[in-house]
């Protein structure tokens, strides 16, 4: 598959100014500021609406909410990993460089991706009895060295893709295991609740990836909720950046404060919810709120976060009660219901879930 394509029929020429000139003007004057400028909010809400209309026409069919039950002996449930190398190009998948069961290679990025995929597979299987990201043994594919000094990692719907980082802000995206867990969890979400990547459901999609990304790191390190750093992307910034990570679930809004990047814009509670049209409606910003709710729950319950807190979130994600456009309030209600079903009405877990949402200002539907 070639990520580049020739001028295809689906693209449309745009020679008028589609975005209102005043918005462009506004954006251009405030581009270096953090995302939440109040003056941009109204304009950007319009942009979100426009995006929503666009998306309504291109969204593909929903996948089944419940994972398939694979007819595989539990002892035979093993990952099937394939790591490819894009060799600095923006073409997927690239050249296959390490397949399941093969010995480590010289390239550390390849080995880190391979190990991270394994750690993610292991958490889902051993803790939640989920056989790969689709629940049915889907092979796990990843591409490393995507693009030239490419400072990002993403999930393209089929595989995880990692850049080497630009060397100025970001280092290699295969470095933090929570980033690998985050990307693969986008796959789990795609095959379960399929939360629409826009607005609050998009922020929930992001948050679920941060939650399980962090749990994969905690599980690998054997850390309890108290011991964990609850950071996302720790080790990703170069030494030139003033910041410890991209996001903090423990203290959203405090992960970085840098001359070039600005300050971490994440809110911890609904009071500071950010209305923006950028970033699909601030999916990487408002995810701070459900992230913080999960952190509160995990610390309140104590012990290993992947056990009870993680189980409640996993049950919610895969239980079939979430709609693709689920908002924070509906998600809060669904987690409360999941805690009640698994641990009992009025149980400590049930009460703790109610409390964690109330502490971040989300009222369950």
């Amino acid at each position, binding site marked *: 598959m070639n*990520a*580049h*394509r020739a001028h295809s029929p689906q693209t*449309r020429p*745009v020679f008028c100014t589609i975005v209102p000139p005043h918005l462009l003007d506004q954006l251009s004057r405030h581009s270096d500021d953090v995302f939440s400028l109040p003056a941009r909010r109204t304009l950007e809400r319009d942009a979100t609406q426009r995006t929503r209309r666009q998306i309504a026409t291109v969204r593909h069919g929903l996948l089944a909410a419940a994972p398939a039950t694979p007819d595989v002996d539990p002892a035979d449930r093993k990952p099937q990993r394939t790591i490819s190398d894009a060799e600095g190009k923006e073409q997927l998948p690239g050249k296959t460089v390490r397949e399941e069961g093969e010995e480590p290679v010289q390239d550390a990025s390849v080995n880190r991706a391979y190990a991270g995929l394994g750690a993610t597979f292991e958490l889902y299987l051993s803790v939640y009895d989920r056989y790969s990201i689709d629940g049915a043994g889907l092979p796990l594919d990843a591409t490393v060295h995507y693009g030239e000094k490419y400072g990002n990692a993403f999930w393209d719907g089929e595989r995880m893709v990692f850049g080497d980082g630009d060397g100025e802000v970001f280092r290699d995206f295969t470095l933090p295991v929570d980033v690998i867990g985050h990307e693969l969890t986008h796959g789990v979400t795609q095959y379960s609740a399929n939360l629409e*990547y*826009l607005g609050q459901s998009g922020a929930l999609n*992001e948050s679920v990836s941060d939650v399980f990304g962090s749990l994969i790191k905690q599980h690998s390190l054997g850390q309890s909720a108290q011991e964990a750093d609850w950071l996302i992307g720790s080790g990703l910034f170069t030494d030139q950046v003033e910041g410890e990570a991209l996001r903090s679930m423990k203290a959203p809004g405090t992960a970085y404060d840098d001359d070039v990047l600005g300050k971490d814009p994440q809110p911890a509670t609904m009071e500071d919810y950010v209305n923006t049209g950028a970033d*699909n409606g601030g999916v*990487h910003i408002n995810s701070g709120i459900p992230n913080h709710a999960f952190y509160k729950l995990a610390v309140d319950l104590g012990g290993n976060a992947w056990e009870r807190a993680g189980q409640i979130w996993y049950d919610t994600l895969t239980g079939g009660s979430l709609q693709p456009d689920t908002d924070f309030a509906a998600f809060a209600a669904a987690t409360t219901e999941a805690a009640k079903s698994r641990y009992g009405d009025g149980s400590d877990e049930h009460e703790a879930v109610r409390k964690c949402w109330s502490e971040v200002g989300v009222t369950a539907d």
Partner: protein
Amino acid sequence: MRITVLRTGGFGGLSRRATLETTDRPDAEELARLADQAVREGLAAAPMGVPDGFHYEVSIETGTSSATAHFADPKLTEAQSALVRKVLKEGA
């Protein structure tokens, strides 16, 4: 011609903007051709994109006209990819 690239989204949700003024550059014609093509191959509104993928908004302005287009990783054409790289690297 003024070419502006606004990149949003990505794993970090960080925005980056850069503008390149092509006037007086030896590669002005080539850049203009690349920018026209990148915009022609773009979309009128921001597409949904993929989880953690970058979104790009490219605007070109000349004395008499302006145009804007959107596209998102990983579905960039050769021209879009080359333009974005150039402007983010050499623009201010």
